[in-house]
């Protein structure tokens, strides 16, 4: 078994009152190239900063070679960082930048005195040692002869190399790279990707890499940690994550994909688009699942011999393949193929069983804790909604003063009653009109499901999430109001022991 060089155990991080890392645990093998991948604000950089020591975890542990380093300051950790904007010291030249870490370092040397006794002495590195090490590091990044240059006279790519040399010259056990290629242009980025990978091979140290670029992650990593919303979504090899995404978010974020709602109809059988398909994943009968089909796994054929039949509605040439959008009934499928089709063609499509990947649906209902107000509305998720309170007591009705009369004739004042609120994603609509709904929130996630979008709307303060399905295209970060019809809000009384 490989040695765990870094291990995070139940790490939680709050910035002031905002939760940014929610109970993250994983380990990194020695010598591995591991990538934290996720959209901006997913917590990947914070995780890296905690490993570097710039941020301290609110709770949980970070172990380095089995030793707890959670609270160790950054200058005491055997890790070095390549920063996003390089963070080269502008007042120092290339040589001095690279030598900075060496000048801070003290090594223990053993000497022998006249009597033959050995003694140890903590010493700074000698000028010669520093010069040699700097030269070696600069050679490694192909910058020999740049020693005397001011960093401001270097190009972006050269500055990037200096930043890498400055970090690796200290011979860290782990090299942390925080989106190091973000500021470079595409061609440069591709070159640096290859060089970094090569450097990783030559140095043999652990690389922890942060990026939001899924292609970069797939190209370079041994292992990818997909993060979203401060939570690890999936850990695996690039191929594992691409072929077997753990949930709709991962499938949507990594590569192109068709994600459709399906229902399990038998052993290794799933129903979507009004047809049963054979697949390789086993789920419980009748379970609602997310079905993922990669666009390159859909095979086009003659209309009559395909499992699905549809009409081509757009064809885009992408260089090495065509991206063809096919409408099957009300569903849209994206197909990638080296063959082209004409818009308006009716084609058949086949999907092999092992190309159909099923994932459990994480969000198929919305649950909230609510409180009944004196107007017989229910308060939850930072808002107030009209609801039918009589469903709490079967056979009850409201009298003219709005008190609840139970079946037995008892008169109840429901004000302050704590209830559980349940709403189906299909019953929620959203609107631009601030006053239209009961509460407001930001769209934090949007995934296309063939014939509709699945959105997650998050309220700003309490961060309650509404999952909903809508045929309309919205934008991420839109601030919208959430509308729920009165009769679609399902209320149940909270069991007594859960009451506070």
């Amino acid at each position: 078994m490989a040695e765990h060089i870094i291990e995070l155990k139940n790490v939680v991080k709050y910035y002031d009152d905002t939760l940014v890392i929610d109970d993250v645990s994983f380990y990194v093998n020695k010598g591995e190239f591991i990538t934290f991948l996720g959209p901006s604000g997913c917590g990947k950089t914070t995780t890296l900063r905690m490993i570097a020591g710039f941020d301290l975890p609110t709770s949980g542990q970070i172990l380095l070679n089995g030793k707890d380093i959670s609270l160790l300051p950054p200058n005491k950790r055997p890790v070095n960082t390549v920063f996003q904007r390089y963070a080269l010291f502008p007042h120092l030249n290339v040589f001095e930048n690279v030598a900075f870490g060496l000048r801070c370092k003290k090594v223990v040397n053993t000497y022998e005195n006249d009597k033959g006794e050995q003694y140890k002495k903590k010493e700074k590195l000698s000028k010669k040692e520093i010069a040699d090490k700097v030269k070696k590091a600069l050679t490694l990044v192909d910058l020999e002869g740049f020693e005397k240059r001011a960093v401001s006279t270097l190009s972006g790519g050269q500055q990037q190399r200096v930043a890498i040399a400055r970090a690796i010259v200290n011979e860290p056990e782990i090299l942390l790279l925080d989106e190091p290629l973000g500021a470079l242009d595409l061609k440069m980025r591709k070159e640096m990707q290859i060089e970094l990978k090569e450097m990783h091979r030559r140095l043999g140290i652990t690389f922890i890499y942060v990026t939001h670029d899924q292609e970069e992650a797939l190209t370079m990593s041994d292992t990818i940690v997909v993060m979203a919303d401060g939570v690890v979504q999936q850990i695996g090899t690039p191929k594992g994550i691409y072929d077997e995404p753990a949930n709709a978010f991962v499938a949507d974020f990594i590569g192109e994909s068709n994600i459709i709602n399906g229902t399990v109809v038998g052993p290794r059988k799933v129903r979507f688009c009004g047809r049963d398909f054979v697949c390789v994943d086993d789920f419980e009968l009748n379970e609602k699942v997310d079905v993922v089909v990669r666009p390159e796994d859909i095979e086009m054929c003659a209309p009559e011999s395909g499992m699905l039949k549809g009409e081509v509605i757009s064809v885009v040439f992408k260089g090495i393949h065509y991206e063809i959008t096919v409408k099957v009934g009300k569903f849209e499928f994206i197909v990638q193929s080296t063959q082209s089709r004409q818009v308006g063609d009716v084609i058949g499509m086949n999907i092999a069983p092992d190309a159909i990947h099923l994932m459990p649906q994480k969000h198929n209902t919305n649950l909230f804790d609510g409180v009944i107000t004196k107007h017989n509305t229910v308060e939850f998720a930072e808002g107030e909604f009209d609801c039918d309170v009589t469903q709490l007591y079967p056979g009850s009705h409201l009298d003219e003063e709005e008190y609840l009369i139970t079946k037995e004739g008892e008169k109840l004042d429901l004000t302050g009653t704590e209830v559980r609120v349940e709403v189906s994603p299909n019953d929620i609509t959203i609107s631009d009109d601030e006053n239209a709904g009961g509460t407001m929130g930001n769209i934090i996630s949007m995934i296309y499901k063939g014939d509709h979008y699945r959105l997650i709307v998050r309220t700003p303060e309490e961060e309650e999430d509404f999952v909903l399905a809508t045929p309309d295209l919205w934008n991420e970060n839109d601030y919208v109001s959430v509308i729920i019809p009165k009769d679609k809000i399902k209320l149940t009384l909270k069991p007594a022991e859960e009451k506070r």
Partner: protein
Amino acid sequence: MIKKCLKAFYIGLILLVLYAPILLLAVYSFNEVDTLGPMGEFSLKHYAKLFGDPAILEMIANTVVLALVAAALSTILGTAGAIGMFYSKRRTRNLMNGVNQIPVINAEIVTALALAITFVAIGVGKSYFTLVVGHMVLCTPFVVLSVLPKLKQMDHSLYEAALDLGASPMKALFKVVLPEIIPGIISGFMLAVTLSLDDYIITSYCKPSTFSTISTYVYNATMKGNVHTAETLSSFWALTTIIFVIILIVTLAANLTGRKHEKKEVKG
């Protein structure tokens, strides 16, 4: 054409209004007369008198030494304050920012009176120490204000990068942060020197009675009913001229080197 002439005339007029009084003094400083009025022969006697009077020389030395001491201390205090503020949590920083701006906006006479009363209240007699404290109160906020923007311009990750490379926080501060903000520190120091040099109000409230700076001396000398004769006063024409020329040279030098620096950066 006419428009151009009018433009030049307008600017000339403004410059004349701004500089005429100083030029007038400069002209008279090279003249033999002791009172403003009809001009006499060219003479350097005011300068001779200025440099020949040990009392005046001592007072000039006092002023310069006080300015340098107060500015140096304010610069240390203000730079430390700015760095502290910059790395504080936002609420603390905003509060400190507000607190720092009050002495800047506040009328100087209020600060001076408050200082004088405070010294009395805590039983500290007026001395060189109280004078330096007074000048530091005056100068420190300005140092903070000139250092803070430099910190804001600095790449946030530089300090972290230094720590990451094994520097202790202290070493990171001196090796990385200070070199980055040194232009702000220098301009803060210069500002403090200028403020201290020409301060009258705080000086007069905080100084021991036997101590004089240029501004308090001149002010007292020009007061009505003062025993100083016009003859003593006229040597200040020379002093004013010298100060003006020094300031002119310093400003020009600063502007020229600044321009050179910019050119170099553009080239780079």
